[in-house]
């Protein structure tokens, strides 16, 4: 089983084909940004992209995704920050932070296909991601901020912008 993760091919032939992608990422590859929350695709904490579509990795057996492209939070912008991540820091969205990698993957996927989403579109795209701490107000604000930044840029240009900026958090807003 060869799976491409964050642009790199990984041979997972030794793994159980029933193993959900989530546990392969976490235990076999050390990519722990995707989180285990429910195991039944109810909470969205494990959200990653499969060929640019946000999916619940806890319900995705390795055997079903051979040859597919997976993007995890670690691969969204590497050590740099995607505009969505940047907006997440600017709005100080997180409380415990456990769900936020999944939230960000859903939000970034939404803005990739719709850079100027309405509130209804945001609600629709984010309804599958639970935040137990209740940071929803800030999630909406952050998506709208990121959307403002992204409008008019092609995805390639967004990538360039991300690569040019190496910012860190922990700043006053």
């Amino acid at each position, binding site marked *: 089983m060869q799976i491409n993760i*964050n642009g790199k091919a990984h041979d997972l032939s030794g793994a*159980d084909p029933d*193993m959900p992608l989530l*546990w392969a990422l*976490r*235990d076999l*590859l*050390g*990519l*722990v*940004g*995707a*989180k*285990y*929350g*429910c*195991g*039944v695709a*109810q*909470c969205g*904490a494990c959200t990653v992209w499969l060929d640019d579509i946000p999916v619940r990795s806890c319900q995705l057996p390795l055997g079903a995704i051979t040859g597919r492209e997976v993007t995890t*939070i*670690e691969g969204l912008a*590497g050590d740099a*920050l995607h505009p969505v991540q940047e907006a*997440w*820091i600017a709005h*100080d*969205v*997180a*409380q*415990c*932070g*456990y*769900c*936020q*990698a999944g939230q*960000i993957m859903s939000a970034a996927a939404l803005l990739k296909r719709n850079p100027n989403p309405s509130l209804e579109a*945001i*609600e*629709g795209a*984010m*309804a599958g*991601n*639970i*935040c*137990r*701490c*209740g*940071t*929803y*107000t*800030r999630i*909406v604000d952050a998506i709208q901020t990121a959307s403002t930044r992204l409008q008019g840029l092609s995805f390639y240009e967004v990538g360039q912008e991300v690569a040019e900026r190496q910012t*860190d*958090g*922990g*700043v*006053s*807003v």
Partner: protein
Amino acid sequence: MSAGASPGIKRRDFLRYSSFGLALSSGGITVLAAAKTAAPANSLNPYVMIHDDGRIVIAAPNPDVGQGVNTALPMIVAEELDADWQDVEVILAPIDASRYGAQFAGGSLSVRNRWDELRQMGAAAREMLLRSAAQQWGVPRVELTTQPSKVLHTPSGRTASFAELVAAATEQPVPADGEVVLKARADYRLLGQRVVNAAAADIVRGRPIFGIDVSVPDMVYATYVKCPQVGGVPKTANLDEVKALPGILDAFIIAGNAGPPSFDLRKSIHVAGGVAIVASNTWVAIKARRSLQVDWDTSAASTDDSRAIEATALSAAGRPTGERDVKRLGDPDSAFAKSSSIVSGVYATDFVSHAQLEPQSCVAHATSTEVEVWTSSQTPGFAQSTLAKLFELPAEAIAVHQIRGGGGFGRRLSNEYVREAAVISKHMGKPVKLQWMREDDMAFDFYRSPAYFGLQAALSETGELTGWRNHVVSVSSDGEEANYGAGYRGYNFPDDVVPNVHISQTMVASKTPTGAWRAPISNVYAFAEQSFLHELAEAAGKDHRDFLMAALGADKWFKPDDLASLNTVRARKAIAAVTQAAGWGRAIPKGRGLGLGFFFSHAGHVAEVAEVSVNADRQVTVHEVWVAADLGQIVNLSGAENQFQGSIVDGVSALADQRISIRSGAIEQTNFHQYPLLRLPQSPKINVEFLASDYPPSGAGEPALPPVAPAICNAVFNACGERIRSLPISRAGFKVV
């Protein structure tokens, strides 16, 4: 992490949230244990360490499970130290009572308990830097002052950074408490500002900072299967069959203790009996559960049925007084006899689960002489003491490392999963990561116990509240203590506010484990009392706000100088502010309503107004919530506001459709499809106002939760005329959309 398998994770990144420069990734167990007592170079005290390159490291003493104290507490130190926040690097302090006192997350106490200590620590470190500069420059100390991260000699204009001064400053004697002058509030640069969570940059990158992310060399993975009927223990299991599965390293029975676990956080060393399955990775262990068959001994297990508990409790709550008196003030019997009218209502709340998003996990390495654990416990100090007791080892042989937790809400106060991990590790002779499944988390919680209130009020001819009876029906495992749900709170309404008060209590037996759930006790009292006060206002024909203001009685601080006691002046200010912000009294379209709730808990005076609409299908939309609070001074405005926004969402989430039911001692809900959490589209608009206040700061994690349910239920009444007396509101056929 994961034996260095991940190129995306840099060692430095984990250090930031590890213990004083100790690396989980390369250090392993020996290094961690050895370094536990070593004071790092350039430490001015247990909280402040300054590097030569200018980085100012501040230790965060208490566990952070999302309440923001890893930002707020270091901010307090940084303010008095006069550190530039841009230079500050937050690290998690080691668990060490000799240096950090009680390290726990609970009761919204972190900021309140540490306010004086941390200001002193910051100010003392600053003073050592100043004295060091005075000595080096040969100038009087009084001519020196600080600007962010540097010392300034105003007459000469000479400056030196903290980093340049720190080596010599470590030689200075540590100033005593009275020797340093704390900043005047007007001079604050940081406190009260909006500061981004210190972990934000790691969180958004998905870096390994949570308990579930911990990995140590040679670690194996375990799952632990317990009896669904709480308190049952295994007799036999098909262990050989499980052990033969690929990737399974071992499967074994832990006899454990029969009977339900105890919420005695200090004393309990209960380990529930069960079957441990240990594997080469988490998935292999989980999958093997499908093949496991266990024969359980349920002779000492719970046989609870939540329907029976409720029926018994409701029947008791229908009586005006209970088995024993809790409080009697004035002459309640004659007040009721003389009243113009008596209003009654029975209020009920269900069992609820914490459902923190990160299920319990713990990495443990236990040998015959030492135990080391990495845990997101809210009480890591108690983890240490109960492990020492369980393994009969001295406290020094137990090392506990605090790790960020993915939500707490009271669920991580108990340490039973820490003990389970340690017992499994000792059996294996290796470090073990125990991972609970979501289903384990929901089945083996310490639930918020249900509470029932038989309320009666006496009103005078002019509609004044003259008497108050509350027959509190509490669930109890021993017939003596109420299990958190409906205990007794002192120094609060209605004591000494209503002239004649009678509070009595009846206990209903239950074996289901119960414990503290966000804003314990207050979260059920608030719903009952604040909804009932609205009923009384209606009965008296008065505006709810006016009635509530009057019901608070005279201006009074119940126990002056005790922030944990009600101050009716602060209470009325919060009610006035929130009603003004929400436009109380404005014309509301048909089918819509505004509702008000106030509650004092965890030293916070919090008032809330909700605007809802209710349609013919009993669908409830919570449009907007306003909250005004006197929390004292605010430490981190962004963090406190976030806690309040989250508390509102949590309150709506819980009242909508969260209930745990029990049949034959087993929990019936298994996962989020049966125990729904509020989602983004249902989330209301939230407006938070913190009132200007000179009182010391109090915690923001809990006090905004209790008023949510009554504010919304009162709004539902105003929208459709129907009184909700039972939570969740789904029980009356309402649905939050």
